[in-house]
């Protein structure tokens, strides 16, 4: 059984936001509210005076191996697959938002009845959501099951996002993680994330 993970190289992310758009279309996110997109690229200026650099920081659900969003979920809507993907069963979710309170990575977003009404208008008859829920990135599990990569990875122009199997020693993603070049966010919280970042060194040089 594979153990899926993502590595994001902050050195090659150019802040084009193509990943956000690809994800939103692929997963029919409420595009009218950027707070409700499953992935988001933060844009920050770092430095002083004339020595200022922009830093782009993509974030998404970290598909934690010890996910607090799952342990607090009273309905069992948040579940983890054997391949490591954490997903939400939207029919079980009652939208109490405990998962959003528990997630240290700001990865849960509400999709309401009003969003669904707009969604039906915007996406037309293709719209597949059946009930409101606290939504999140699913690593595009529907694509992964078909052997494809998540939409954000496939569309990333700088190849900043890489997707792979940690249990495959030949997989470049597994190698970057094993070498320590790619590191998780806030591992001290104990969530055991499966999204790893390669730190950007441009602005430090």
């Amino acid at each position: 059984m594979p153990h899926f993970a993502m590595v994001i190289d902050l050195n090659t992310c150019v802040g084009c936001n193509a990943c956000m758009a690809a994800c939103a279309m692929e997963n029919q996110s409420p595009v009218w509210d950027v707070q409700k997109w499953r992935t988001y690229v933060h844009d920050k200026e770092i430095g002083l005076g004339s020595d200022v650099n922009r830093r782009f920081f993509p974030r998404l659900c970290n598909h934690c191996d010890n996910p607090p969003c799952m342990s607090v979920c009273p309905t069992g809507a948040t579940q983890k697959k054997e391949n490591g993907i954490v997903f939400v069963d939207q029919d079980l979710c009652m939208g109490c938002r405990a998962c959003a309170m528990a997630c240290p990575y700001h990865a849960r977003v509400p999709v309401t009845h009003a969003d669904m009404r707009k969604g039906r208008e915007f996406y037309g008859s293709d719209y597949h959501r059946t009930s409101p829920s606290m939504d999140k990135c699913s690593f595009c599990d529907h694509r992964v099951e078909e052997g494809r990569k998540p939409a954000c990875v496939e569309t990333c122009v700088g190849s900043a996002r890489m997707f792979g199997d940690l249990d495959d020693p030949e997989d470049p993603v597994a190698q970057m993680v094993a070498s320590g070049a790619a590191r998780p966010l806030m591992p001290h919280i104990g969530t055991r994330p499966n999204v790893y970042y390669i730190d950007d060194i441009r602005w430090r040089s």
Partner: protein
Amino acid sequence: MEVNMTYATQDIWTWWLAIYLYFGGLGAATLAVTFLTDMYLKPSRDLVIWGAGAGVVLLALGSLMLFGHLLDKVAVLTILNPMAMFNQSTAWIAWGTQFIIWMMVWGVLYALPYVRETEFPKKVPVIKDLIDRPFVIGISKLVNRFHRQVGWLAVVNGVGVAVYTGLLLQSFPAVALWHNPAVPLLFTVSAFSTAMAFLLLLMYTLLHEQADESIRVLYERIDLVLIAGELVVLFSLYMYLKNGSESAVRSLELLWNDYGWMVGFIGFGLIVPFFLELKGVMKGWSTRVPIITASVLVLAGGYMLRHYFMYAGVYAYPW
């Protein structure tokens, strides 16, 4: 990697969740205290009816707050099933919901024989018919036979609710203010302290004639100890936050630099009532006004604690 941290409070669970936690703790602790008083100190019909009534009404109102904010209200059915507690054994909302339901059920049953004895329900149309139905009379007789067992079932679930309100916040690992063992302790002590205040308020006003002096004095003493305990827990929390992570330090700054928290909650919600009750216990008061004042302050302080707690939790985001 974590050099550009952003620190943020949340706007997901706000005042309405504070009301849920407050009514939950207050209602459940009031029910537990009155039932224990009735079982082990002195049979107290009025206290039991008020305790069960407060438990049911406050918990219903509190639960409505949460229910009203659910994204999908139909899906709540999943957690009304008692098996949810075992299927989702790490989710405190699953436990809390069952504690709330069963506390209400056992609470109403425990109070039933007393309700049947009182005059007022006989004047209320629907209730009048209901309490004279043969099956209700049968249940009432059964409750009388298993008085203590039913009482304890309600008390255990009531204590469960009070503790749950703190465990719920403690289960969010990203926020240092919430994710520490002082929180369930603080919320439980505060729940019982507000329950004492509520009962004292009742016994000095609406139940003034019927109230038993020895029980009133006992409640005053217990409340004094509980307030002192709450201050000790708050002090340890302060020390923990002061030397804690950045999330902890920022929460501490938010709370301890806020007049509402410092003057409102700690000053008027704890210290002033502590001294008013201390004087009452040591030397007594010639009027009931000071204890009524202390009770109102403790009740207001109980809400403020939860309100400020919800708004002062700080998340640390590495972007």
